[in-house]
């Protein structure tokens, strides 16, 4: 963790992510407006009372950006946790037991991977109906296969290691070996993937909301704000820019953070530096 702060790129990413998390958490304290409050004339430019101007019906854009941050980060976090939970369990079970069960789980996951993730998430949302919880589920579902594959791969390499055999010789049962012995040895790739999947979850959420299938108005979301802003691109470019920048910077930072985590956690990469 200390090493991450020493590396300038990951230090920047960490600080930005902390900043945006704090902004989102402290939103009610930071702005005098509510996110659905019509505070001034529509489409005003930047000013001291409206940092990023106002939107098409006169709501404060800064307020909506930070509240949207709550939604985007929450959806991103929850869907990544859902994916992690199911992915890890499926991966452990299929890698550990192998055979027909492994084939069944792996083919199912291959099936999920065959769809582009945004299309799959769209389809799931269309079936479940658009709201924030279904968005978490849908985005979580599309990210399950990647976690399952990483876990399965690492189970396969760990399974034949001597310390696993040694634990078995001490009387450890299957569950204890899977969760207590193999899983702790597979954490670093999962941590890296967590960061990368978090980024793509934020992106997919923005995409869904942009298409009107994600979080429903008046709750703000970066995606739906971008959608609204695109009609006023010439009159109020700042609107699009801040909404886009919020998504862009968050996703970029999560991805870069994932990369530096990988660099620091992978001992083979460490030697080269």
């Amino acid at each position, binding site marked *: 963790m200390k090493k991450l702060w020493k590396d300038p790129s990951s230090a920047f990413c960490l600080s930005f992510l902390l900043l945006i998390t704090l902004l989102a958490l402290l939103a009610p304290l930071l702005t005098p407006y509510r996110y659905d409050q019509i505070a001034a004339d529509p489409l005003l430019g930047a000013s001291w009372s409206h940092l990023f101007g106002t939107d098409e019906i006169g709501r404060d854009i800064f307020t909506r950006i930070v509240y949207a941050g709550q939604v985007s980060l929450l959806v991103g976090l929850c869907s990544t946790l859902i994916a992690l939970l199911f992915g890890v369990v499926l991966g452990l079970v299929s890698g550990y037991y192998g055979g027909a069960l492994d084939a069944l789980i792996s083919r199912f996951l291959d099936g999920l991977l065959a769809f582009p993730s945004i299309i799959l998430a769209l389809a799931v949302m269309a079936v479940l109906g658009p709201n924030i919880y279904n968005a978490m589920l849908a985005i979580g579902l599309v990210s399950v296969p990647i976690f399952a594959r990483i876990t399965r791969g690492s189970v396969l390499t760990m399974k034949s290691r*001597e*310390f696993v055999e*040694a634990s078995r*010789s*001490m*009387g*450890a*049962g299957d569950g204890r070996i899977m969760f207590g012995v193999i899983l*702790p*040895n597979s954490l670093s790739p999962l941590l890296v993937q967590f960061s990368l999947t978090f980024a793509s979850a934020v992106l997919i959420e923005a995409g869904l909301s942009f298409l009107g299938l994600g979080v429903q108005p008046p709750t703000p979301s970066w995606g739906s704000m971008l959608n609204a802003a695109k009609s006023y691109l010439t009159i109020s470019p700042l609107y699009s820019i801040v909404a886009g920048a919020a998504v862009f910077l968050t996703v970029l930072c999560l991805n870069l953070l994932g990369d530096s985590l990988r660099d620091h956690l992978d001992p083979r990469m460490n030697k080269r530096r």
Partner: protein
Amino acid sequence: MNESLLDVNSLTVGYRDGSRPISILNQVTFRIRKGETLGIVGESGCGKSMTSLAVMGLLASPLQVQEGSIRLEETELTGLSAKQMNRYRGKDLAMIFQEPMTSLNPVFTIGSQIEEALAIHLPLSRSEVRKRAIELLQLVGIPSPEKRHGDYPHQLSGGMRQRAMIAIALACEPRLLILDEPTTALDVTIQAQILELLASLKEKSGMSMMFITHDLGVMMKMADRVIVMYGGRIVETAPIAKLYEEPLHPYTQGLWKAIPSADTLNQRLYSIPGTVPDPREETPGCRFAGRCPHARQECLAAVPPLVPMDEDRSVACILYS
């Protein structure tokens, strides 16, 4: 001292190749008395490790016990489910593996790994478990055990790691400790220390040991009785002293001749010609016949049975029947 702890009776282990059963261990019969150390010697691939894995119930599919029984005192181990077997593994039976470098879990401290072993079988509180773990570290001769308790395996040397492995294996005071070449991966001085430690631990606890090695010098030091295995069968069994003075089976004689010694310094080291036969090639006769200097026509006809020579030694060779 004469009561047996482990009774293995005509144990046959193998797998099925299509419809043809292939046996890797064949009719292996031996027993280990309470407090006794039984050594198993033989070349690589002769079934030593397979025997120990079968006793531990750790045979990996497709390998399975095809015939025979393994009894731990009153309990028959062969038919037990994985869950029932887990109650004996670690508690009554413990095993130490060859590679101390890879047998410890790299992401946990050695203290927590000992505590884990305790927690699986014994209903102890957290502080009791910790206290016991430190006692165990002390018992196996790890200096400043409180400090080492929090060390990760990569912070320890090979000898210390093997000591930690021994501490884990001894955690629940097993009645039988199986050692699968426990010192092969260590250098000679450390090897001597570990053997010393094992001998003194055995003296203190009165447990039985099954000691697998291909190092006859180590065997001399550790074992009370020795089984010589070849091609998945027992070819000779005898107390170590008798085996040393007068090896009967040609294979045992060959093994003995292959030990380097000071007076054969400038000679080419003896080795038994040929290699261990593939278990898939079924031969009706003695498995060793192809490499045996005394082989005759009859050797190829039937497998020689293990014939008792006197009260505590037997040999499976046509020369003695």
